[in-house]
């Protein structure tokens, strides 16, 4: 370790290694967190339920979404991406997942919320299978860290169903 080049090389290698280790430890510390989130979704109204000219069913609905996701935040969390998806099966498809609404929660203070909203994204089926069909509404969340591993999980709420007839 005598020349400037040697010292610079040693310094750079050491600092990059330390940075990498710090990022790994930050990410591992997320495993110490045991979250306990809660959520509830009520469908307030089916605004309309029609068959499109191409033959696919489309529905518009208004929901009340309330949730407490504060326990998911750690010091290494940058934001929480959450979305509500409707999940159901049809004769042709064993699983359909359609995202209806999503939001980004940037901080712990905003993670306990209540929102009254209609579906942000169009709910269109592949076909016309929705009349009278039962479906689940699932609240998914993705924890996006400041560095490291991303976590995702969900709460499934069952027991919703479409009207028997178009309206």
């Amino acid at each position: 370790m005598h020349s400037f080049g040697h010292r610079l090389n040693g310094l750079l290698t050491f600092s990059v290694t330390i940075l990498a280790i710090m990022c790994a430890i930050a990410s591992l510390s997320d495993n110490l967190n045991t979250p306990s989130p809660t959520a509830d979704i009520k469908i307030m109204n089916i605004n309309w339920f029609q068959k499109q000219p191409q033959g696919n069913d489309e529905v518009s609905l208004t929901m009340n979404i309330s949730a407490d996701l504060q326990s998911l935040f750690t010091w290494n969390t940058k934001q929480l991406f959450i979305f509500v998806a409707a999940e159901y099966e049809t004769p042709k498809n064993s699983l359909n997942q359609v995202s209806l609404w999503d939001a980004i929660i940037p901080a712990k203070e905003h993670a306990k919320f209540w929102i009254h909203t209609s579906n942000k994204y169009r709910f269109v089926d592949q076909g016309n299978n929705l009349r009278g069909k039962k479906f689940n509404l699932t609240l998914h969340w993705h924890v996006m860290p400041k560095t490291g591993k991303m976590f995702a999980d969900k709460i499934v709420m069952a027991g919703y169903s479409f009207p028997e007839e178009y309206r």
Partner: protein
Amino acid sequence: MGWIEENMKSTHFRQILSQAISLGMVISSALIIWKGLIYITGSESPVVVVLSGSMEPGFKRGDILFLYMNKDPIRAGQIVVFNDGRDVPIVHRVIEVHEQRDSKEADILTKGDANPHDDRMLYTSSNRWLQRKYIMGRAVGFLPYVGWLTIIMTDKPIIKYILLGALGLLVITSKE
């Protein structure tokens, strides 16, 4: 000029050979690590740089993503990297999945978090849905800012040549 001549004269054949072999070892180990990563993660490009702002504020331009791919089915909410025959792959989130009962093939729709509309307009050859075969991997981990070097080297290739030239010069003129 005299300095360069001196350098050339004082290196013996063995020294040049050993330097060439060390260089070869460094390049081979880098290749082994890269190919090993491709095998472990099951993805053709295990590390990608985020190039656009369509996933902000979660992923900014210059962040790098670690990808992993296995036979698990694609589900809504996963962040996937796909390439359906375009110049650069796209990193977006899956918002719709329609998985067929018999064939287990799935129709997939994606959207960038910061984009107002889904990606249907972006898919090549007027496909209305994305298929699993175009998906190169799911994002499982992330490091901020590290990818800026790659972006700078792509936008201003002169910097790439300067770096390579400087490295080459260092290798030739170092005496060990």
